């Protein structure tokens, strides 16, 4: 045992002793990050002083801690990628990474991580890149507090944070804007995405596919070209996020397509054209959410089943729920609907008659979209009232048996 320990420390000690700090500054012998990486060994620290450095796909193939002091600029002058990390245990902090090449043959990225583990990318500013941070086949990565701004060019824009085939990645406190998709996941499992702000991206604020067991918490997705789109995924949790001002005809606060066993709780959907759009999605719990001033709070297609909507607040939406056919096994319970006109004789806080969230006018608009011009007119109010009193066209099965009289306090 002792010999083993000795041998082990004998191996390890030189490594620790040898950990050096290499300084990079303009006008000194070591004037580029590439030189510094060549001079360094595993475990070294590289400090980069303030300045502008040309970096044409600098390869980081050793376990280094690379710190920028005063946000030094790494510029690829639109000729290449900027940084590629192929070693595990790298920490990259405090850089300004700008101007990657754009093109349709390769996904040029500002910071590319490929087949690595335990890497931290933090406090960087990324500007004017094709792809921002690109992770492929990585595990245990942290992407923290980066500000990522794209070029806002519709034809030549990649994703802000792009994950492909990753596991257990933490993405926290980032700001992504003007990219194609703010945050893009494909085959990324067991990741945690929290406290990010993704706004004004060209396509989706958040876009993921085949990414099971991920958790999204406290993020804000605002005013993105097509809102948020999530597809073909199992067991995700979307908690306490805010989806705000995603406006347009095919633009959704959240689009759910073939999502199963998801939990969507505590989110706020404010002023979206459609809050949640659901297609082929089963066994989803939608609970404690606020739907405020949306055009359509929810659009649930007939291909969805076994979904539970409980304890949500629906306030000031033009339409609460719409559908395209017959809904089966969709349960509404204990929600607050501001359009509810029932009474509560026994004073238990829930209304005595059920609320039907699908109005006749919503059905009319479904068939004849032009009739939007008649919204809030006397005749529409009249036919809605008549339909509420004697339901004949609106689906009988969709109703909240116990609507709340007062909104849920959060």
């Amino acid at each position, binding site marked *: 045992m002792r010999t083993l320990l000795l041998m082990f420390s004998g191996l390890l000690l030189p490594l620790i002793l040898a950990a050096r700090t290499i300084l990079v500054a303009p006008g000194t012998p070591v004037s580029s990050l590439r030189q510094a990486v060549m001079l360094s060994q595993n475990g070294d620290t590289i400090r980069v002083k303030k300045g502008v450095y040309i970096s044409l796909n600098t390869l980081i193939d050793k376990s280094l801690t690379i710190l920028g002091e005063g946000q030094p600029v790494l510029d690829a002058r639109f000729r290449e990628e900027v940084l590629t990390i192929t070693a595990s245990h790298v920490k990259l902090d405090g850089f300004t990474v700008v101007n990657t090449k754009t093109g349709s043959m390769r996904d040029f990225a500002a910071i590319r991580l490929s087949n690595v583990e335990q890497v931290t990318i933090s406090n960087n500013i990324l500007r004017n890149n094709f792809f921002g941070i690109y992770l492929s086949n990585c595990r245990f990565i942290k992407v923290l507090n980066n500000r990522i701004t794209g070029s806002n060019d519709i034809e030549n824009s990649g994703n802000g944070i792009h994950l492909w085939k990753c596991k257990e990645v933490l993405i926290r406190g980032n700001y992504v804007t003007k990219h194609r998709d703010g945050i893009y996941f494909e085959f990324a499992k067991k990741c945690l995405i929290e406290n990010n702000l993704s706004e004004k991206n060209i396509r989706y604020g958040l876009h993921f596919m085949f990414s099971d067991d991920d958790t999204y918490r406290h993020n804000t997705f605002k005013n993105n070209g097509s809102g948020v789109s999530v597809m073909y995924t199992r067991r995700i949790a979307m908690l306490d996020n805010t989806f705000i001002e995603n*406006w347009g005809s095919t633009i959704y606060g959240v689009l759910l397509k073939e999502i199963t066993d998801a939990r969507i709780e505590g989110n706020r959907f404010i002023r979206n*054209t459609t809050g949640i759009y659901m297609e082929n999605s089963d066994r989803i719990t939608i609970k404690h959410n606020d739907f405020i001033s949306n055009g359509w709070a929810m659009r649930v297609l007939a291909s969805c089943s076994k979904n539970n909507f409980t304890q949500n607040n629906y306030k000031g939406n*033009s339409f609460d729920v719409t559908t395209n056919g017959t809904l089966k096994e969709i349960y509404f319970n204990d929600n607050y609907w501001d359009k509810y006109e029932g009474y509560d004789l026994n004073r238990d806080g829930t209304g005595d008659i059920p609320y039907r969230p699908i109005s006749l006018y919503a059905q009319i608009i479904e068939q004849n979209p032009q009739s939007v011009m008649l919204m809030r*007119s*006397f*005749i529409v109010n*009249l036919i809605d009232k008549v339909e509420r009193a004697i339901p004949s066209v609106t689906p009988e099965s969709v109703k909240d048996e116990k609507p709340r009289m007062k909104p849920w306090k959060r």
Partner: protein
Amino acid sequence: MLKIAKYIIFDIIRSKVLLAYTLLLLAISLTIFMSDADVTKGLVSITTVILIIVPLVSIVYATTYYFNAAEFTEMLVSQPISRRNILLGKFIGISSSILLAFIIGVCIPVCLFAFSATGITLMVSGYLLTLSFVSLAFLTSTITHDKAKGIGLALMLWFYFSIIFDGLVLLFLYTFADYPLEKAMIVLTALNPIDLARILILLQLDISALMGYTGALYQQFFGSGSGIIFSLLMQLVWILVPLFFALRIFKKKDL
């Protein structure tokens, strides 16, 4: 002209009908705002009220007053005052007193409880709606000769604009559902002052839903300021055109 207006305003303020109208509006607005903490919901309810009650009272009251003051008009005509000045004086007098009722009954509560872009739009559209229906009332009064016919016509107009018209539009939409109706719809709404007022308010309350339409024309209409400008301009047309025709008829009318 202004002297006549002043006289009429003083005359109307003394009458109980307008007082009742003011109190009714005030009661409705205050109850709605007091009973519900949610201001937007209150504004939605007030919208419904404005779109029904304001046109009704404006058109019926203006017509009734016009006929009740027929002798006064005859007296004025015998004086050296042009008929144009008499009619415009009456219009200014009646419309400003009804507007006063609207200001006290709706604008003050809205300013107190829900002063916002939506609130302002609501007040402006109520204003314009009042004016256009008083203008329509002048048209019905000058067209007809006796009071019963005049009021009947006024009621018919109100009923047509607030209910029948939208019903016809709905029917039209279903009949021609296979055709692109965007332009036709915008033109159709311009044919009804209540619809114009409603669209002004919609642009504030339901913009999220209105943005959901694929048609480029709708997007442009709702998305930019052009929808607001269009409805404001058309409202003005609805105030000026009936008044213009009323004036033409009144000038030649044998009292």
